[in-house]
């Protein structure tokens, strides 16, 4: 066959070879179909480990217990025992992986805003929702402009006013 007919064929073959060689370097070694097959499991397996290494920030109530035993015990005797510490005090961990008792981390900022308390205590009388069972106040009439914790102790809301 004439050379000018075969030449494009060689060019195409060369391109295919080039792509296959490049592919060997670009596609990670652990890339393949996982346990879920081609349709749902085609991925880089190392990414599962990448996600597992993500830093935990919310440590949970039991984490606070050993140092802040007094607060832990007192709130547990009140209806507020269902609220985890970190809901108001913020997460104990940071994205850098430093956790609260570490000296590098400043004091946890406490959310004392009225909006924080109103998340539950703004009255919404919705039938079929537990929200209707929680006692609420009208924020426009009930001592506006002062923080709730000025009078109420969030760790012991039933003890009476401060």
């Amino acid at each position, binding site marked *: 066959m004439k050379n000018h007919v075969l030449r494009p064929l060689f060019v195409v073959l060369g391109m295919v070879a080039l792509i296959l060689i490049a592919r060997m370097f670009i596609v990670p070694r652990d890339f393949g179909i996982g346990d879920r097959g081609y349709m*749902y499991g*085609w991925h880089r397996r190392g990414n599962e480990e990448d996600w*597992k290494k993500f830093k935990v920030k919310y440590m949970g109530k039991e984490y606070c217990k050993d140092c802040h035993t007094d607060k832990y015990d007192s709130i547990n005797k009140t209806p507020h025992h269902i609220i*985890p510490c970190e809901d108001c005090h913020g997460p104990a961990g940071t994205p850098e992986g430093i956790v609260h008792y570490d000296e590098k981390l400043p004091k946890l900022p406490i959310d004392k805003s009225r909006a924080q308390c*109103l*998340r*539950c205590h703004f009255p919404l009388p919705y*039938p079929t929702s537990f*929200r209707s069972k929680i006692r609420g106040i009208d924020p426009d009439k009930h001592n506006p402009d002062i923080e709730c914790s000025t009078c109420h102790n969030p760790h012991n809301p039933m003890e009476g006013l401060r």
Partner: protein
Amino acid sequence: MISRRKFLKNAALGIAGMSIPLAALEIIDPKKLFAEVAADKAAVRWAFLVDTYKCVGCGMCVKACKLENEIPYDANVTRTWVERYVLTKTGKLYADTPKGARDGFTTAKIDENADGIKDISKEGIEKAFFVPKLCNQCDNPPCVQVCPVGATYQAPDGVVLVDRTWCIGCGYCIMGCPYGVRFFHPVYHTAEKCNFCYHRITKGLKTACVQACPFGARQIGNIKDPNDPVTITMRTQRVGVLKSEYGTKPQVYYIGLDEEVR
């Protein structure tokens, strides 16, 4: 010249041969069979249970999720959110989720976006409730099927993950999800979604939203464990899933789901 008898015989044979499916000719490899049985015995399949009666719409879950998973706090995107549904006695439905309920619901006024703010009187309410939403970690995830590069996938324990180093940001998965749980991460510019706090559940912790919920409205469990509280509730109570008609087999189950919820 072919005889009539021979022609009919060959035709019948040919048709019979064509009707045999290819699968019938496959020789089953015992090793492969055993491997498939073993693979199905994966000990973990994560599933989520939401009790809409218990949810009060405080939004602590949304706040915890954003901080735990490093989703920019003031960006209007979130991996989980809480919707409020208010059905009036006149049959009208109102629903809103201001900032994804990051700051809870601290007003009776309902933000209907373009339709304006609606103030519904206490007497006019027929029923009203809150519905937390998150990724359903479907058994047949449509978002995974449409990914052209294999950046999103289902882990062996059922959780759908996104590989941030591999995602090209085409957005097909965001379009493909019938539940609208996916979005672009404002910092990484890759597809982002709830992954049941994969870094926590694989360490034996609960997800950040489950831990932050004071009312126990959210639960996560392993439905391959018959003694898991979530499995027991799912077996013994009436639970529903969202948009089952899509065939995605979602794995977030709801107690007290109403037909108005979509």
